């Protein structure tokens, strides 16, 4: 069996204690949430932490609650819990869609939302819907608590703006505007989700009282070093009727914005082609949901 290298292991029971260990530990310290990335990365040698700080004994970091202006999702909330949550389904349909196609059911039981952001994989399924929904992360560090948009946290493959001693404690998803609908789709090697995305797309569309698209947000996975906001595609929709022509224009703009690599999952050109197809499909779902919400 692939044995893990030795590390010093900690199970702090408070955030303060965890931050203390991280701050003292320096660059070799890593947080452990569900471990579905960290344990894998330690087995493959991609990560060689000398200190592992398990967050799971700290109370209050898991669960989903309705709060003023939106919902608050604890960083340790498992993806399976997101998938099953009626609150997430109502308030953040794209996030619920994404949770339902992330990995396989047993992995979803371990994998957490905070770990998904922390890993910052370009193929992340949760980054795009969180950015579409303008989610805000609460981060605890040695200097206290701060809030950052999830969008601003991504820097590159596996890299975030978080310092070693920073802990995401929760994610706030604001109540969407009236007439808003969102959806997430991905294409992997096999049907029905479960595989890492060759391409993933989340979209959110707000229909105005006149039935035109007041605003749109489109974010793609696996086509750039970070989740990619397709601003030109969003602009191609603003102010237009939610027609097939508008959808096609946005899909073309989204494909044009992609900067993918070729890897074992798909070639760059295949990814660009998929990005267009998937953007059109996900926009149709988001528009249909926005129409439902406008009724």
């Amino acid at each position: 069996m692939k044995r893990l290298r030795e590390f010093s292991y900690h199970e702090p029971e408070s955030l303060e204690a965890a931050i203390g260990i991280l701050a003292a530990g320096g660059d070799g310290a890593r947080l452990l949430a569900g471990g579905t990335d960290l344990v894998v990365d330690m087995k493959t040698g991609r990560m060689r932490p000398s200190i592992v700080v398990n967050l799971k004994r700290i109370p209050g970091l898991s669960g989903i609650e309705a709060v003023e202006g939106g919902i608050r999702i604890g960083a340790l909330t498992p993806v399976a819990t997101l998938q099953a949550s009626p609150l997430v389904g109502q308030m953040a349909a794209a996030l619920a869609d994404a949770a339902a196609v992330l990995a396989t059911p047993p992995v979803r039981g371990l994998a957490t939302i905070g770990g998904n952001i922390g890993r910052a994989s370009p193929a992340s399924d949760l980054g795009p819907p969180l950015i579409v929904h303008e989610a805000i992360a609460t981060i605890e560090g040695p200097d206290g608590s701060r809030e950052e948009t999830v969008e601003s946290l991504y820097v590159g493959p596996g890299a975030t703006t978080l310092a070693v001693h920073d802990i995401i404690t929760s994610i706030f998803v604001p109540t969407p505007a009236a007439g808003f609908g969102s959806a997430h789709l991905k294409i992997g090697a096999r049907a029905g989700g479960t595989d890492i995305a060759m391409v993933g797309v989340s979209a959110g569309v707000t229909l105005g009282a006149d039935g035109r698209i007041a605003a749109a947000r489109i974010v793609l996975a696996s086509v750039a070093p970070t989740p990619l906001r397709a601003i030109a595609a969003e602009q191609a929709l603003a102010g237009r009727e939610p027609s097939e022509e508008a959808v096609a224009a946005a899909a073309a703009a989204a494909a044009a914005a992609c900067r993918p690599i070729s890897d074992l999952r798909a070639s760059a050109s295949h990814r660009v082609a998929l990005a267009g197809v998937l953007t059109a499909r996900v926009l149709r779902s988001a528009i249909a949901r926005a129409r439902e919400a406008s009724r």
Partner: protein
Amino acid sequence: MRLTATVNGRARTFEVEARSTLLEVIRESLLLTGAKEACGVGECGNCMVLLDGEPTPSCLVLAPDAEGREIVTVEGLAPEGALDEVQAAFLEAGAFQCGFCTPGMVITAGALLRDQPNAAAGEIKQALAGVLCRCGSYTKVMKAMEKLAGRGA
């Protein structure tokens, strides 16, 4: 460090290293070799055990995270040697060739049927998507599962 957990219905206490995975503990300390390591990285489900009732790839769980929890391995499904319903249905349908994936399959299948006794074919496929069978016994696994879910002969 010391780990106390319930394994197949019995309270057990043993010494583990923090860097051991639950799978290593199960196979090497408890000598329960039903759970297998194939990929070691969460993709194949051959190491599946029930952790507090939920199918969990034990190769991804650090041993200390099992503290105080209830672990059921494939050995725990038939403690007296009599096969449980899922195992018997797999045997009858011949839902394996080499049998390497079977512990993960029956552990995962049993949890699904406990929660959804009449799971639809699509739900069965989704639930079992986390267990890979190198021999390609999926069709016969589905045959066993259809019968367990109350359909087919």
